[in-house]
């Protein structure tokens, strides 16, 4: 399980953030000792750091510079300082991403996920039972057959696949679609899901995507 360190002095936010990360399958850890923030970060040795700029003692930007002297751990700046200068500075100090409060929690999770993907440099090929899914080429295939998925169908399928066995809300799917510049409406989402179902049926997975009424979808 990936460990994500939360460097944030607002306790309400840090606790809810931990909650969010834990629910999403990460191990959220809250930094407590701001006096010795750097030492604690080293001790925790996290896989990713969510770093606020306005924190007590050493501010986020300075802490970021200090960490970067020794480590390449992925860092996302999460801050309410919504200026271009702060963003440019943070990125030049070596932050991997910059997101401003208040943020859409789903978007934050997507950004974290993307960052891990980018860093691990996975070849992006996913599998679902005997199916191979190649999001870059937009195809899904088994030994005998190969089908093309549209951009939207692929976004939906990879999201469901990443959360396989868990309920995915329509809102989460919509957020991921919109985050990829597909500004579709509810009807279009229905159409895309039914097309995806038809394509999966072609491979013999008839009821792979189950509808949970009032909750969302689940990929079995």
């Amino acid at each position, binding site marked *: 399980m990936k460990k994500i360190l939360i460097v944030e002095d*607002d306790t*309400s*936010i840090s606790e*809810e*953030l931990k*909650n*969010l990360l834990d*629910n999403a399958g990460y191990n959220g850890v809250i930094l407590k000792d701001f006096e010795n923030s750097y030492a604690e970060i080293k001790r925790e040795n996290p896989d990713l750091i969510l770093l606020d700029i*306005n924190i007590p003692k050493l501010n986020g930007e300075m802490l970021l510079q200090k960490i970067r002297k020794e480590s390449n751990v992925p860092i996302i700046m999460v801050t*309410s*300082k*919504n*200026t*271009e*200068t702060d*963003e*440019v500075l943070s990125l030049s100090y070596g932050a991997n991403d910059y997101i401003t*409060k*208040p*943020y*859409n*929690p*789903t*978007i934050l999770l997507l950004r974290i996920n993307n960052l891990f993907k980018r860093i691990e440099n996975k070849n992006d090929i996913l599998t679902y039972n005997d199916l191979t899914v190649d999001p870059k080429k937009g195809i899904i295939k088994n030994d005998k057959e190969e089908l093309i998925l549209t951009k939207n169908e692929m976004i939906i399928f990879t999201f469901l696949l990443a959360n396989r066995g868990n309920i995915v809300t329509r809102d989460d799917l*919509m*957020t991921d679609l*919109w*985050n990829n*510049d597909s*500004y579709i*409406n*509810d009807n279009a989402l229905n159409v895309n899901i039914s097309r995806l179902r038809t394509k999966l049926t072609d491979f013999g997975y008839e009821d792979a995507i189950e509808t949970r009424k009032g909750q969302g979808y689940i990929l079995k």
Partner: protein
Amino acid sequence: MKFSKYLKNNYLIILLFIVIIAIIDLMLISFKTNNQAIVGVTITGVLGFILYLIYDFYRRKKFYDKFINDLDLLDKKYLITEMIEKPNFYEGEILYDALYEIDKSMAEKIKEYSLNIQDFKEYIEMWIHEAKLPLASLNLIVHNHKELSDKKITEQLKRLDDDIEQVLYYVRSENAEKDYLIKETEIAKVISNVAIKNKDILLENNIDFEVEVGNTKVLTDSKWLEFIVNQIVSNSIKYIRNDVEHLIKITTEENNKNVILKIYDNGIGIGKSDIPKVFDKTFTGNNGRKIETSTGMGLYIAKQLCKKLGHKITIDSKENEYTEVSILFNKDDFLNVAK
């Protein structure tokens, strides 16, 4: 400075002089003085007096003409004390010293105000960062506790965030100091942030959101532009027309000199007489009066920000048909050459 006016202004002393000369002449006549002597005294007196008047007129004229001329030329009139030389006549000296005193006192007062404004601005910026924390927290709480989850709550949170942002950008737009950063920005990314912010309300109102901006890049401050576009899109959402399928369409046009970002909606539009006034401060117009939440500040701030960034914002609309806001960005020739 005119000589005739100067004479008019000194008429008492001229009158007095004529009377005195007349009295002296009469006295000399009554003492049976030589006629030639009388003429000599009179001419000497009158000539001396006229010479004095001319001298006095010219030294004043020299000072006041320069004073008035400089004042005309000056953009900031209060800098006049830096331009003029100390005059060589008494009243001029008084004026000169008084102007210095007045200027000094005004400068102090202005400094006091600008410090107050600076303090206030810093406080507002700090307050806004603080206010965003509970907002961020609430967004997470709503997301984490599905049983509390309600689109209505997130919508209200979004509204609150928009209102807070508006104050922040109002302060930034009114402030003389340059607190933006121009860099090459991908329009699609800015639009994407605005779209995600407004996703729920767009979906709920069945508004189709079409974006065709390709990978157009412009020189701007992306955060400022995001605020501006968000204001425009928020307006489009507010003023939808019920008898059509709602549509917001964002496109770009590009030529050699500039890029134009167009935000079109098929909403209720703006009346012809209201169009020239939509960028005015606190102007709400006919449409605003129909909707309670209209403050008339959004477009005003958007225009101020555009001015600072060097973009041009215009609006075109037909009542009950459409509204289209265009933002014109200049292309930087130097940057293109540098590439």
